[in-house]
């Protein structure tokens, strides 16, 4: 029994570290593909394509790591994650299309940027996790 308990905790810790590794790698590869084109290889098409493909592959790795992380959680933690993700998805779709309409109707002066939507989804997801943790405390 003791060995199993240790295994469960160890597995969760390992999944968390694994997800952190893939997330940091994805962020770094995103920064490289975005700023490398401007500051390092100065619009070299081959290097730009390579950097974008590397970013995509690492992104796939991050998705798989996230699935493994979620599957390793217990049922309440999974419920909290599911509720947070559903809120983030809803806000992302509704907020994203609302933002796009504002842009198309020229109600906002600046262009609608995808990065703003990503930030909105990330913040909503974090708030959702916080609410879930407080609700089931």
């Amino acid at each position: 029994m003791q060995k199993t308990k240790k295994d469960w905790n160890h597995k969760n810790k390992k999944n968390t570290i694994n997800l952190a590794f893939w997330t940091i790698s994805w962020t770094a590869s995103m920064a490289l593909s975005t700023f490398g084109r401007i500051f390092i290889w100065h619009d070299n098409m081959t290097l730009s394509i390579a950097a974008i493909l590397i970013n995509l592959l690492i992104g796939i790795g991050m998705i798989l790591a996230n699935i493994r992380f979620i599957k390793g959680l217990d049922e309440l933690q999974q419920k909290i994650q599911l509720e947070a993700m559903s809120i983030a998805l809803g806000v992302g779709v509704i907020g994203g299309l609302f933002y796009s309409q504002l842009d198309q109707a020229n109600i906002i002066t600046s262009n609608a940027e995808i990065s703003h939507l990503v930030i909105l989804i990330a913040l909503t997801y974090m708030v959702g996790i916080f609410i879930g943790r407080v609700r089931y405390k």
Partner: protein
Amino acid sequence: MKNKLKVLRAERDWTQEKLSDELEVSRQTINAIEKGKFDPSLPLAFKIAKLFNSKIEDIFQYEENN
């Protein structure tokens, strides 16, 4: 759903941490079940019943108005 998890745990002088280790769930999950904020799945309920050598219905009582 009402449950006797806190009573059974207290009878054995176990902490929430100890029980969460035994059931391979987080301490937050044990706390939420004890407070009635979260109803466990059937597999987890069976696991709890087995750990306390009881029947599920002796630990968990369904409340009609809940």
